[in-house]
């Protein structure tokens, strides 16, 4: 077929400002910019532009802009441009549409329709800048009754993760993101006393020193899982599913399996790393118990075991089963969650909103009287601290952030992670691109993000007259819904605004 590929984005160069320094040429892995040998001018061809905005950000004179391509006008109210483009792409290739990041469709969300409370007169709001404000959070199974021995000392408590801020970095594997990106998150987690998650890609040797801030993940591919790996972190997470691709396995193409990834995943250089859709030792809930306890046995009951699932229709019952299967933490990933690569239709059409899933799970566990036996961590597009605090009010113990963390490292959400050409050095294994992310800077920025959100959390808590985050946990009276149906309010367990 002889059609010329049309650009999705249009790069615009202001020649009055361009000094032909060539920084853009050197920074674009998509080879959009180039130096014309004859004229010695820097020019560009937008065809492969992914709108990652690296050139825009690094251009020293601000000469560049990237716009949505103006020729895309053929869509209409019934047939959106992206639908038409998808059909064209599939007609060309016969393939499954692959995409990255979380959904870019306007998926209904509830955080924005829940408003927080603030104290007025009948109780005081607290000034978090000057008065103590506690965010310390423990994740892990809590006994129903605090057992004291004869001397009044507490009897052994189950292992806990201790967080200074109820925000953790969600699972992102080495392979899907670069080692420098992981190092950034690990160091930020260390400095802010929280945790990052290895994802299913194993633990690179450089990351072992961050063990006390590491959650190691065991997924269906079992990459890099050995005794050292299981013992390296503070907790182990069994990954069943993720919000961006519930029911779907993972697939790291062989070209991303370089020396470091190969060593870390313990697979041959250049081979595909395929994670099966299910764990093949878990075909039923009692098998989950088996895996949970095999990990507890392996680590001699010293680490909490988390089980991560995607938010799907029956999530409350599933979560109850997971709690009863012996998990210490349940991580639930909502349908707006991100990923490095996922089939587009799965990402955009499978799963349920995290707010409803969380509310349903929290309520269900309370109804069954086992809420204290398991901690709930939610993720899936936690965009800012208000999402975090609303999640906690709905009943979450802590949240996972991933996309927000990557944005703090430089990600511009161009959704091209799966190409391996991330110009920001994040979703790539190309050494020249990887070094673009200085983990010292990355760590600083990710830690800044956590600190900033921490301040905001404290401010919002203070406004509600609460000085310890546990007093907000499941405190749904602090939320009111706007513009929701009764069924939604009921599931969320909140009142309508004005009630």
């Amino acid at each position, binding site marked *: 077929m002889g059609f010329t590929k049309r650009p999705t984005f249009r790069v615009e160069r202001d020649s*009055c*400002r361009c*000094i*032909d*320094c*060539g*920084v853009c040429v*050197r*920074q674009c892995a998509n080879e959009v910019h180039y130096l014309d040998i004859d004229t010695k001018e820097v020019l560009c061809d937008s065809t492969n532009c992914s709108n990652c905005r690296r050139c825009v*950000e*690094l251009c*020293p*004179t601000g000469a560049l802009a990237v716009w949505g391509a103006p020729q895309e006008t053929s869509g209409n109210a019934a047939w959106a441009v992206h639908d038409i483009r998808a059909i064209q792409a599939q007609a060309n290739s016969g393939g499954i549409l692959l995409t990255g990041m979380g959904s870019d469709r306007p998926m209904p969300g509830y955080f924005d329709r829940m408003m927080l409370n603030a104290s007025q007169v009948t109780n005081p709001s607290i000034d978090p800048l000057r008065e103590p404000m506690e965010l310390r959070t423990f994740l892990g199974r809590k006994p129903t009754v605090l057992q004291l021995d004869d001397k009044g000392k507490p009897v052994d408590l189950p292992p806990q993760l201790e967080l200074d801020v109820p925000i953790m970095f969600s699972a992102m594997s080495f392979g899907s993101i670069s080692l420098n990106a992981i190092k950034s998150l690990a160091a930020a987690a260390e400095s802010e006393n929280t945790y990052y998650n290895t994802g299913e890609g194993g633990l690179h040797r450089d990351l072992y020193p961050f063990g006390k801030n590491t959650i190691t993940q065991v997924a269906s591919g079992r990459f890099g899982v050995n005794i050292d790996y299981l013992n390296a972190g503070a907790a182990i997470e069994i990954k069943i599913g993720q919000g961006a691709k519930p029911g779907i396995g993972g697939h790291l193409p062989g070209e991303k399996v370089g020396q470091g990834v190969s060593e870390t995943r313990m697979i041959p250089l250049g081979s595909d790393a395929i994670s099966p859709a299910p764990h093949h030792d878990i075909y039923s809930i009692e098998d989950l118990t088996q895996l949970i306890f095999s990990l507890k046995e392996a680590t001699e009951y010293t680490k909490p075991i988390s089980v991560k699932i995607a938010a799907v229709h029956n999530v409350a019952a599933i979560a109850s089963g997971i709690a009863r299967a012996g998990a210490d933490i349940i991580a639930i990933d909502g349908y707006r969650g991100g990923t490095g690569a996922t089939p587009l239709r799965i990402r955009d059409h499978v799963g349920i909103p995290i707010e409803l899933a969380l509310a349903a799970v929290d309520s269900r566990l309370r109804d069954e009287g086992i809420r204290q036996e398991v901690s709930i961590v939610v993720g899936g597009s936690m965009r800012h601290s208000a999402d975090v605090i609303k999640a906690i009010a709905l009943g979450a113990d802590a949240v996972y952030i991933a996309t927000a963390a990557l944005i703090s490292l430089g990600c511009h959400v161009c959704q091209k992670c799966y190409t391996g050409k991330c110009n920001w*050095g994040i979703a790539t294994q190309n*050494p*020249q691109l990887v*070094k*673009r*992310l*200085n983990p*010292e*800077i990355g760590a600083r920025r990710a830690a800044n993000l956590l600190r900033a959100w921490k301040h905001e959390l404290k401010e919002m808590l203070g406004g509600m007259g609460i000085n310890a985050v546990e007093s907000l946990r499941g405190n749904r009276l602090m939320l009111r819904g706007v513009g929701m149906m009764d069924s939604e309010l009921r599931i969320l367990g909140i009142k309508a605004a004005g009630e």
Partner: protein
Amino acid sequence: MKRIRIKEEYCIGCRLCEVHCIAAHGKYKNDLIKTFKRDCNRPSPRIVIEEKEDTCFALPCRHCREAFCIRSCLTGSMTRDPETRLVHNEVERCVGCWTCIAACPYGAIVREGRHTKIAAKCDLCGQDPACVKHCPNDAIVYEEVGEDDHYDACNHR
């Protein structure tokens, strides 16, 4: 004393350091557009990116403890500041004989511009290096070093 330290592992080869170095030493101080569009005598960058395949890093003058450029200088224009211990070239006395270029093991001394006969080198921009300020990846940092930690490979002979 503070010196520039380079971090090879984080240099992304964008050459923004060179661009900003040029502007910082040009007559339209720090104005990139005027420097590049209006100054046909714009200075040479005092910092260059060394590049080969996957490796790249910036390399400015090291202000060596045992500086070949000072020893070699025919006019005595290349001197060491007794206070800052920085090596600098007194341009009024430089005649552009280029002996320093022949001597500098780092290739950190350049011919200024296209028409002058003056050797140019890193002067740390008066303690606020433009390259450091504009490096997007902290691959060039400006930090305190001890006299003995001075990055210097010239003191063999």
